[in-house]
């Protein structure tokens, strides 16, 4: 593995081929905020909080730090006025869905994001996909997935798989930056695996309800 020298916020940083800007920054104790990133999982690039400015051959552009591969002589800036305004807006957009998430609140303080900028549309889920990707990539169970697309996208447990797998796992719970996942899971559980006594009544529910 060849060593790559780059510059992050004015500091010379040594990185290895194949690392991302985020990896390199974290190895040098330079903080870049993330929401959908997890070290054990493939980089996702969904939340865009890790947006940073890079400069190559005099050309500046904005990229997702969790995805952009390091290259020699790369200049990275992790805090500029533009970047801060992007992060502020992203946080405000997410706080409309999960206003009480501690992780979002911490970041909101740092970036002066207004929790009430947008009308509340509490879905609690911010669609970071951590639960889904953890279940697929690490556990290889695919018990939870995305349904729909665009603004209608949501997460959904697949009852048939969840019934067999989730009881003894629940490893995705602590990954959730809001508390939606637990709620969603319990709701699915309530609908799909009721006590034996009420099985016949809930069978109808299972066939007519989607989360």
């Amino acid at each position, binding site marked *: 593995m060849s060593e790559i020298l780059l510059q992050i916020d004015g500091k010379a940083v040594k990185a290895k081929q194949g690392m991302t800007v985020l990896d390199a920054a974290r190895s040098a104790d330079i903080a870049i905020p993330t929401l959908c990133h997890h070290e054990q999982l493939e980089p996702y690039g969904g939340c865009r909080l890790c947006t940073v400015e890079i400069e190559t051959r005099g050309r500046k552009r904005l990229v997702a730090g969790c995805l952009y591969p390091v290259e020699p002589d790369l200049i990275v800036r992790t805090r500029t006025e533009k970047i801060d305004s992007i992060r502020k807006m*992203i946080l405000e*957009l997410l706080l409309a869905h999960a206003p009480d998430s501690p992780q979002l609140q911490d970041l909101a303080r740092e970036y002066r994001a207004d929790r009430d900028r947008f*009308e509340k549309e509490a879905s609690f889920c*911010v669609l970071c996909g951590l639960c889904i990707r953890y279940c697929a990539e690490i556990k290889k169970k695919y018990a939870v997935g995305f349904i729909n697309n665009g603004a209608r996208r949501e997460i959904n447990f697949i009852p048939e798989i969840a019934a067999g797998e989730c009881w003894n796992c629940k490893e995705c719970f602590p990954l959730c930056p809001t508390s939606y996942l637990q709620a969603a899971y319990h709701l699915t559980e309530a609908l799909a695996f009721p006590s034996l006594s009420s099985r016949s009544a809930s069978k109808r529910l299972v066939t007519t309800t989607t989360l």
Partner: protein
Amino acid sequence: MPRINSAAELETLRKDILSRRDPGKPAIAICAGTGCLGLGNDKVISAFQEEIKKRSLEAQIEIRATGCHGFCEKGPNVILYPEEICYLQVTPEDVPEIVSETLLGKKVIDRLIYTDPMTGEKAAHQSEIPFYRNQMRNLISNNTRIDPSSIEDYLAGGGYSALSKALFEMGPKQVLEEIKKANLRGRGGGGFPAGLKWETARNAPGEEKYVIVNAHEGEPGAFMDRALFTGNPHCVLEGLIIGAHAIGSHQGFIYTRHDTPQLKANIDTALAKTREYGFLGKNILGSGFDFDVEVHFDVGIFVSGESSALMRSIEGKNPEPRPKYIRTSVSGIWDKPSNLNNVETWANVPQIISKGAAWYTGIGTERSKGTKLLSLSGNICHTGVVEVPFGTTLREIVYGIGGGIPNGKKLKAVHFGGPMGGSVPESLLDTPLDFDAMSKLGAPIGAGGMLVLDEDTNMVELTRFYLDFLTNESCGKCVPCREGIRQMLKILTKMCEGKGKEGDIELLEEIAEVAGAASLCSLGKTASDPLKGTLRYFREEYEASIKGK
């Protein structure tokens, strides 16, 4: 038909086909494009078949169900050869008269020909109708001469001679040079030079490389690619095979829509024929070059036409875009070099190879060469598929070809590029059609959807419409796009209801800025372009919807 094994055999076959054809033989070309079929042209086709059979004229008169003729406004369209008499808005009831009067009696039926709505002047021949006369139909004109299911029709018009030239006379490097010299720019929206893209894919490391036809054409108001591909599938295939040879690819993909069965059927027939004749498969035309093509369907959302999402879809995954920090021409499908061009780009290749880059660069402007297909629609007299050389002014397209604005209304703007495009106000109508000139105005040509808007159009409502489309047609993966569109749409919806408030415009601009800068793919990056464009030229309409109309 046995396989063709050399350039000489191809020319022998072509001579044989032509010797069996009489150019003076009467032929009826009936448009079976989507628009005309929707107007009931299938009934016109069967009426002609019955009438010809009834009169036992099968041997003397040929009937061709063809691809889109272009003049959708006046469909169902019928063209009678050899005179090229153009009949418009034909009904099954007209058919017996057309056969007896025009085909046998050689008399023109006055009520079926074009009448200029302004001057009352009549035009019987295709070449005299202003809609056709003012175009340069290098790509689309073959649609009326070809039965899409007949490879012989394509061969009769010189088909696959460019492939033969590329394989036996030129070779990959020279083909690449020719495409670069021609300055063929991608017609899918970006206008990126195709030759450079091909070169990147060719030079990228790895044996396995792919070439792809993007036939997704998902934006509202765009219908030119399917008109061309459905009507003349071999032209696109020939371009693709030439490109594959130049790049060094042995596997191609066609990515198309699940909801255009006619296009799929025509592609499948064309692929079967090309394999049978030896234009696809092992050892093409005896040249030693192997190449084949697979057809893939989309999964029904707009974003699957975005190049990286499209490649994911071909891999069998969700069509979610991925960042293109490494170009797809270096790392695309299964991380292999993958060269993607859209239908029209590939269709340009055979003519460049046949006639040369010098001929090609004689058409167009300094930096935009050749012709461009446009889907002309909206508040325009002549809706249809139009092909003009770059450099044609928007005014010429709207008035010279499109026949102007109906119902005595005034023109307000022309919108290009659908939900990720922009609008040009009437005052800039003398702008030439040119990739760079249009981009500067904030209205990049995009794929070629050209929507004409009259004075009654509410530009805030137009913008709201496009964001409403995108909010359901994006993938939903990244926050600036998914949530940014959601909030912009909410604000615009309120504005359209007359409930806009102070600060809304500034907030829209702030969200648009973030979505444009931080989104993952080009959909999110350009989703707010109609908003930015209309704010630039029609800001007063936004202000009016805040103050209350």
